[in-house]
C-alpha cells in the first residue's frame, strides 16, 4: 500500500490562520551604523544651530517635493562633498589663535595667607550651561577623516564639523552643490490577506 499523505485531507486555512511568532526586532543596524556625536565649542554654537536647522529645512523641502530624504541624508551628502574638497585641496584650513577661546584674568592672592572670597568667574557660570552636540549617523570613515583633520590642525572635532558643513551649505546655497535623489533598495515583504 502506498504511504498516505498526512495533511492531504486537512484544510490549509486552519494552519495559516494562527499567527507565527516572529523574531524580535534587533538593533543590529543601529549598532553597526552608530551616530557620531561632536561637541561644539561655545563660540561655534550659534553657527552650529543655524547649520543644523538649515539641514533639517533642506530635508523637509526635499520631502515636500516627494524626494524622501532625512536630515542625516543631507548631512552625509554635505560632509562627503566637503571631505572630498579638503582631500583635493580645494578647501584649505588656515588655523590661527582664536582670541575668544583663551582668556586671561586676575586672581587676588593675599600675601599674608588669608583667603579672599573670589567673585564667580565667567567660566564657573558657563559650567551650568548645557553642552551642545551635533550628531549625525554618517559612515565611520567620515568620522575618522574629521578626527584626522582636527588633530592635524589642533582643532576640536566639533569645530571641523561646523566648518566643513558650513562650506558645503554655502556651496548648496550658491548653486554649486545640487542634491540629486538616488533610489535605494529596500527590503520588501509579502503578506497574505483574505476577506
Amino acid at each position, binding site marked *: 500500500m502506498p*504511504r*498516505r*499523505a*498526512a*495533511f492531504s485531507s*486537512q484544510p490549509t*486555512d*486552519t*494552519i495559516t*490562520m*494562527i*499567527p*507565527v*511568532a*516572529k*523574531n*524580535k526586532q534587533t538593533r543590529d543596524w543601529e549598532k553597526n551604523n552608530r551616530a557620531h556625536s561632536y561637541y561644539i565649542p561655545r563660540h561655534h554654537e550659534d553657527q552650529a544651530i543655524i547649520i543644523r536647522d538649515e539641514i533639517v529645512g533642506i530635508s523637509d523641502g526635499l520631502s515636500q517635493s516627494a524626494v524622501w530624504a532625512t536630515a542625516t541624508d543631507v548631512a552625509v551628502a554635505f560632509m562627503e562633498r566637503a571631505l572630498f574638497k579638503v582631500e583635493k585641496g580645494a578647501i584649505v584650513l588656515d588655523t590661527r589663535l582664536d582670541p575668544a577661546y583663551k582668556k586671561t584674568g586676575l586672581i587676588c592672592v593675599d600675601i599674608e595667607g588669608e583667603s579672599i572670597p573670589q567673585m564667580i568667574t565667567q567660566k564657573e557660570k558657563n559650567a551650568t550651561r548645557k553642552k551642545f552636540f551635533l550628531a549625525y549617523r554618517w559612515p565611520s570613515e567620515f568620522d575618522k577623516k574629521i578626527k584626522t583633520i582636527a588633530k592635524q590642525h589642533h582643532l576640536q572635532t566639533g569645530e571641523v564639523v561646523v566648518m566643513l558643513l558650513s562650506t558645503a551649505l554655502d556651496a548648496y546655497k550658491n548653486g554649486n552643490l545640487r542634491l540629486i535623489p538616488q533610489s535605494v533598495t529596500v527590503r520588501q515583504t509579502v503578506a497574505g490577506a483574505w476577506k
Partner: protein
Amino acid sequence: MTKIIAITNQKGGVGKTTTAITIAHGLSLRGRNVLLVDFDPQGQCATALGINPEPCVFNLLINHQAPALWVRESGRSNLCLIPSDRTTATAQAVINAEGRSFSAVLEAVKPLMRGYDFLIFDTAPSAGGLQERAIWAADLVLIPTATEFLSSDGLTQIMSTLTQLRETRNWKGKLLGVLPTFYDEQTKESKSSFGELQNKFEKSLLAPIHRATILRECAAEGITVFEKDSASRASKEYEKLVTILLKKI
C-alpha cells in the same frame, strides 16, 4: 514582562514533557527565572526533574489559597515547579462542572507572574477543558510532534483547537513553532514525515530534535540533558531551540 509558553499536542508520546523540562532548564541556565507548571495528570515533570509528584496543580486551581504555596524548588537555580499528579484530572472535572471561564488558568497563575520571566506549561495529551484553558492563558504555543504519520495527523487536531480558540474565545496568542521530535533521517517514514511538515509549516517549522537514547536515560535518572551531557547532540539541539525562543520572545 512575563511570557507564558504552552507546550501542547493532543497526541501523546511526542516529547512534550521532555521538551517542557529541557526548555525550562535551558532558559534558567541563561539566567531567566522560570516556573514550570505541569498540567498533565501523569505528573511526569516532577519525576523527570527528580522530585516527587504532588497535588499542587489541583490546589492551585481548586484551593483558594496563595498560589505561591504550591511552588516547589527544583534544586536548580532559577527553576521552580508546580508539580502535578492524578488529582489534576479531578481539578479538570471540577472546573468543567463549575463551568469556569476560559481565563481560569490565567487567573490562577497571575499572582505568580511577577516573580518569573517565563511560565512554561506542560499540557496533557487530551482536550478535556484544562488544556484549552492552559493554551488560552499562553502568549506562545510550541507544538512538539514526532516525525511519524500518526503524529502529523494528530497535529491538525491541535491546529484546529488553536483556530477555534482564536475564533470563538478571542485567544491572542501566537504559534512559537512546530517542533519535530524523534527525528531519524535513517528511516524512510521519519524523512517523509519531516518532508510533509516542511511543506505544510514552512517557516514555522523548527529545527528537528533527533531521536536520542540520552533523553530516555535523563528521564530515568531525574536530570535534564544539560546536566547529563551538555556536549551531546540532543543537548546542542535543545540549546539551539532555547536560543531561537529567546530571539522570538
